[in-house]
């Protein structure tokens, strides 16, 4: 028996690799929508309709440009099974942003526009030496979509629209510790996604001045990294020959989403929206990394995800207090796509409840400012070592996660 077989017998050191996951979807496109629980499929509020329902864009009166930015403060607590020590993230802030520009003839039946937004992303930095360090120490997942959009009003009551969704920029950085018999090494995977195309499309129907309906669909895009860089650090010379990989490839599905929305306008000043999103998370079965050279005896590392399709329910409303000032409130309930016993540190996911609020203030005819804030509470979620054993998902850590997220956002609108 030589050293190689000895080490192999000890199990693949890279058994539990990580990437992004469940809650890596970010629905933060329009700042107005953010204040209303994220509804928008059945509404035609503003240019952000390009994201929620391109079919509604033709019904948006104004032409204009709007720019939005959010600050996402995610705060997480973790207690490992049997422990009483709480681990907290090294806190970071992510800044999802969006840009929507729409144009069309004042009285014409069509609108065209371009949207830039960040529908998927995640950044978590776990505490030094935390119990799950061999699953993940750091993740930074970014994506930017660019979407040229065209929408056409077939009648005064019915409009359709579609967009070409371009994954213009995607980047992933994953880091974790590698368990050696007497120490921990570290591996960093860093790569850029290839440019990929998808689409979205929607139908918007306005049977009366008090009721609107919408349906929209956004296709799945596989974010694909080839030739990503693998960097090892802190691997002692004794083991260096077993960690030779320099390049990796991986694919992460950005799942398809189908949405239904209803808008109610009981008075001129009052608007309500209800949305249901259905996300095909079941496309995410395993996270697999392929390496150019072996890492501790294997060139492939595969980790179970087994996500399930999930619904999100959203409700929100706005009230036009004065001509210039609008107030908003809303909430959402988000079913986690992650099954019990499959929770990974990249996405310490659980069912989420959010409460939102927002305001807009118009400075004159052309310029207005939106502000929103969201408070997202992920349910406390526990998985035991026994759960992991039963599901053969022992590449992650047993314990209890709890996450809260606060997301203030600010939007600037210029209409003409």
């Amino acid at each position, binding site marked *: 028996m030589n050293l190689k077989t000895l080490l192999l017998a000890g199990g693949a050191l890279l058994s539990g690799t990580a990437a992004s996951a469940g809650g890596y979807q970010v629905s933060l496109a329009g700042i107005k929508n953010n204040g209303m629980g994220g509804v928008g499929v059945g509404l035609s509020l503003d240019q952000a309709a390009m994201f929620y329902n391109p079919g509604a864009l033709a019904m948006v009166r104004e032409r204009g440009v709007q720019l939005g930015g959010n600050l996402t403060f995610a705060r997480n607590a973790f207690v490992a099974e049997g422990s*009483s020590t709480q681990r907290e993230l090294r806190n970071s802030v992510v800044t999802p942003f969006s840009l929507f520009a729409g144009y069309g003839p004042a009285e014409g039946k069509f609108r065209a526009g371009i949207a830039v937004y960040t529908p998927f992303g995640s950044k978590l930095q776990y505490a030094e030496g935390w119990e799950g360090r061999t699953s993940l120490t750091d993740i930074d997942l970014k994506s930017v979509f660019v979407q040229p959009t065209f929408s056409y009003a077939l009648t005064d009551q019915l409009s359709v629209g579609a967009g070409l969704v371009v994954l213009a920029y995607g980047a992933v950085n994953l880091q974790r510790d590698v368990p050696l018999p007497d120490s921990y090494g570290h591996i960093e995977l860093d790569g850029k996604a290839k440019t990929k195309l998808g689409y979205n499309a929607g139908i918007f129907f306005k049977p009366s001045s008090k009721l609107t309906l919408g349906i929209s669909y956004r296709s799945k895009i596989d974010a694909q990294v080839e030739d990503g860089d693998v960097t090892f650090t802190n691997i002692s010379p004794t083991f260096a020959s077993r960690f030779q990989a320099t390049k990796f490839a991986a694919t992460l599905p950005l799942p398809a989403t189908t949405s239904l929305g209803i808008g109610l306008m009981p008075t001129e000043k009052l608007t309500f929206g209800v949305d249901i999103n259905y996300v095909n998370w079941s496309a995410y079965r395993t996270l697999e990394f392929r390496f150019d050279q072996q890492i501790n005896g294997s060139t492939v590392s595969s980790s179970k995800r087994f996500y399930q399709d999930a619904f999100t329910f959203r409700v929100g409303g706005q009230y036009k207090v004065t001509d210039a000032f609008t107030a908003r409130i809303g909430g959402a309930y988000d079913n986690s796509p992650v099954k019990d016993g499959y929770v990974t540190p990249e996405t310490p996911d659980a069912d989420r409840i959010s409460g939102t609020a927002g305001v807009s203030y118009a400075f004159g005819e052309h310029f207005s400012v939106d502000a929103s804030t969201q408070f997202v509470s992920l349910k406390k979620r526990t998985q035991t070592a026994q759960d992991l054993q039963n599901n053969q998902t022992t590449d992650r850590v047993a314990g209890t996660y709890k996450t809260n997220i606060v997301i203030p956002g600010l939007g600037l609108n210029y209409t003409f």
Partner: protein
Amino acid sequence: MNTILFRKYVPFVALLGLGLTACQPDLEDDFKASAGTADFSRYIAVGNSLTAGYSDNGLYLEGQQSSYPNLLAMQFKQVGGGDFVQPLFKAANGSGYLTITGFNADGTPQINPEAKDNNGTYVAPGQFATGRAYTAAGVPLLERYGATDNQNLGVPGIRIADITTASYGRLTGTSNPLTFNSYFERLLPSATDTRSYLDYVKSQVSAVNPTFFTNWLGNNDVLGFASTGGTGAPLTAVPEFTTKYGQMLDALTTGGAKGLVATIPNVTNVPLFTTVPTAAVIAQVSATPIPPALVPVIANLLKLPAGSPLPSGTRFGLYIRTGAGTNREATANDLLLLPARGVINTPSTTSPFPNGIGLVIPNADAPTTAALAASANALASSLVLDAAETKAVVDRTTELNNVIMTAAKAKNLAVFDANAYFTSIARTGVITNGINNTAAFVSGNLFSLDGVHPTPRGYALVANEMIKVINATYGASVPQLNAAAYRGVEFP
């Protein structure tokens, strides 16, 4: 204007800050540590090498610091436990211990004693370098602890059978390993102390007045026999064990202390006995062709006419010694001890055959078979635990464990079933926070280089298992350790 702006925005900024602070979830109330009905303020640990923190065939500072009593005491501190004093070595090397010093061409590790004498040459573990050990009457002794505040009373090598032996820590001209223990000697305040281990425990109990104790004695009552292939100390008889184990528990509970006892793991599950694959070695030896140059030598040995071929089927075989002058061919039921790995098939100065090797002629008559066995260069009995010895060890382990559990039940003590735990580890290993650990030698992370004693990670797992039992028995919530933060085998 600045002031106005400031006044205007301060409440908002404060609100944002407040919002973010409130945002941090807090799980600590859900996992509050508590002592339950137990009191951990003064803890005392009784046991053998496992309790002392012995690892890599030696007792040294790092091992002492990762002893399970020390780890337990660390966790007890979170629920009202007090300080825990260990008889630490001042010199980090302690008694000396095994380390991996390099690798052979085939990748197997070279394992050597770490302790070096002043000339830079290796000395066997258990021997002591000049300047670090007191030498008396030519017998190397260990650095004496010197204080009397010791709460970790673990003494490597001690059996329950030894606990009432007077002068067990006093070196005399007639001392032998069954009546003298240098690890006990170093705990005693003077070289003329004649106390037995039980008396020592009693005096420490009255000095410390413990509220909680652990007792993990008994392993050596079977291990001493097993690790010497049945040639060393005999298996302790059940009645003797019952009496002395009871005396020890009485001594520990005199002050009303609560506590935990641990059972004896079936030692044949540890790498010392499981690393050398007997069946594979036998197969390899049997399949090795007899070199033509050896044929005349063997023919001569068999007293065959010159030039005649060997009887059909003649092959090499792996032989073991079962008693004085009695050899037999090994079977797959024999457990070859770890050190046999370095002996089998090495050249011999006393026999034409390499060590462990002899000849076998299938279906030969009895006298020929006996003659072949007698001529074989059989492995020493101390390197083999044969089927009968293995059965004796396993049976006695079960009997002694029944004694332990009965005694513990009578006193309402927590019981850590180390036997069940190590059996499950031998079968399936254990995963700690995503890291695989098994009972495999060197690579498994749990057993140190002696193949019997745990690594720091192994000890941390033992501490966690004890905590689980303590929590269940005493309604406590003592937090467990992160075992993955402790190392497995140290590599160069």
